[in-house]
């Protein structure tokens, strides 16, 4: 079933390729696959900055930006022009080469992840055999650029921010990978394309997405928690921590390099959200069987926007965690639950279908989870503080 509208980008790429001499075709094909991604996602970044500022404003009973253009729609352009024309200040004692390379490296690493994201039917830059592994391998390179930024600035705030960011990213990378392992177990493949194909069918009108299973919903929730922390979003935005360390690892950056950091962070968030969509939400497949006529890439971006809205909503709601709370959450709740979830996925695989399977699987996760959260809760006991010098 290849609707022309659904495949319009694939077909136009083939049409364009027919003008290229055969010797240059691999290169041209690569360029034609990569360039749309390089355009589409920064554009999405521009839209998201506006959506986020507007949404946060409304959440806090404000208007948000509404001066530039009608309803403030030109705000991203104004921001871009502003950051382009701003003076680029580099601290005198900074390590200039590393200071210069860090934002570029960050954006490059953030873009690399998109190579394996299927953003539509037959629309993936490279169908790697070990796609999910590739995604996480590339994702781990972001930490290095964060370190480069923090260390090269020679500022204690940026170094503290970088240390926090790296500690947080490493801690949450483990649950991030473990949460996606359940999908790999069930799909039997590390290739993102075949994972999406495994979720393509429908029962009645309901899709076979992995999120509609006990291990899937738990895995999705854990994945999103870890993804929030991984992309330094509120409530896990300690590395930025405006009130404590001003802006974390990119405090000494200004002008366009600063904008590049923002771009890199948002691209990372989109990439992890896209991976969550691929792993749990059926990739580009339609949510109901009667909606399959809508092109696949529309569904992918609709899901992506929905997840982005979720991120914004969470950011507008929850206050920032403390460092020890963050680490406790990672190691005492998210990680054990992710491990349990793997057990659940195994049980689900080997038990015969039916309501008993559901009950058993939910029980395996829910009962230990209750105890784990109790443990987290017990630490929240407040005591009357006694001050030694305040009397």
């Amino acid at each position, binding site marked *: 079933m290849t609707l022309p509208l659904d495949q319009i980008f694939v077909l136009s790429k083939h049409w364009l390729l027919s003008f290229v001499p055969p010797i240059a075709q691999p290169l041209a094909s690569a360029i034609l696959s990569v360039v749309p991604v390089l355009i589409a996602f920064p554009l999405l970044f521009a839209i998201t900055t506006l959506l986020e500022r507007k949404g946060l404003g409304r959440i806090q009973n404000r208007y948000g930006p509404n001066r530039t253009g009608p309803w403030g729609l030109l705000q991203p352009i104004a921001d871009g022009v502003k950051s382009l024309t701003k003076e680029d200040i580099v601290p005198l004692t900074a*390590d200039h080469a*590393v200071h210069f390379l860090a934002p570029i490296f960050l954006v490059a690493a953030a873009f690399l992840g998109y190579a394996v994201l299927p953003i539509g039917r037959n629309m993936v830059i490279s169908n*790697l*055999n*070990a796609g999910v*592994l*590739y995604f*996480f*391998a*590339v994702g*781990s*390179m972001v*930490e*290095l650029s964060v*370190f*480069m930024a923090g*260390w090269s600035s020679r500022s204690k705030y940026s*170094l503290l921010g970088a*240390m926090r960011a*790296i500690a947080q990213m*490493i801690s949450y*990378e483990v649950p991030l990978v473990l949460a996606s392992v359940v999908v790999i177990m069930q799909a*039997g*493949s*590390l*290739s993102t394309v075949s994972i999406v194909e495994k979720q393509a069918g429908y029962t009645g009108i309901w899709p076979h997405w992995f999120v509609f299973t006990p291990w899937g919903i738990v895995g999705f929730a854990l994945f999103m928690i870890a993804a929030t922390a991984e992309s330094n979003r509120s409530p896990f935005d300690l590395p930025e921590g405006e009130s404590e360390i001003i802006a974390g690892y990119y405090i000494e950056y200004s002008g366009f390099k600063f904008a590049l950091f923002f771009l890199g962070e948002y691209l990372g968030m989109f990439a992890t959200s896209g991976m969550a969509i691929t792993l749990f939400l059926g990739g580009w497949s339609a949510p109901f069987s009667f909606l399959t006529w809508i092109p696949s890439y529309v569904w992918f971006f609709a899901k992506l926007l929905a997840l982005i809205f979720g991120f914004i909503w969470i950011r507008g709601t929850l206050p920032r965690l403390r460092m020890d709370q963050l680490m406790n959450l990672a190691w005492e709740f998210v990680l054990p639950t992710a491990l349990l979830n793997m057990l659940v996925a195994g049980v689900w695989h080997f038990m015969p279908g039916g309501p008993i399977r559901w009950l058993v699987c939910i029980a395996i996760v829910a009962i230990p989870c209750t105890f784990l959260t109790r443990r987290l809760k017990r630490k929240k006991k407040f005591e009357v503080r006694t001050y030694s010098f305040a009397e």
Partner: protein
Amino acid sequence: MTIAFIILAVITVAGTAAAMGMRNAVHCVLALTVGFAGVAAIYLQLDAQFVGLTQIMVYVGAVAILAVFAIMMTHSPSPTKPPTYSSYWLMGSIVAAAVFAVLAWAVVSSGAHTQSLPSEPTVSVQQIGDALMHRFVLPLEIMGLLLTAALIGAVVIAMDHNEEIK
């Protein structure tokens, strides 16, 4: 030798040589990651996708970060810059050069260059998984045990035993 291999080899050697030769320890680690990434790219060129990606994940994502963390934690701002190389650096480089000479001589004089590249093996990740779970299940389990022991050991060693400070 293809151009791709030459480029990758030059990147790898340049990265690692810079890692072993630069003055600033953090620069060394950053150069080292370039070298590790080059090695990973060579793995990919040799059709070992899984190993190449694991290399990036483990070395660039974990070992390099661990190293910079260790450098940060052991950084002592001393007024006098100590020399970068140890007192017996000449001996060390002579030994290394000699080792390279012997190895290169052995490689060149062996019949390795006559060996042609066999056809591309079809190695899917599934096959690697199967091999890990059947033929190599015992080493895998031992590896798991080793990693756990190393994890606990590293935590115990690095933990601050000096309780008075707290």
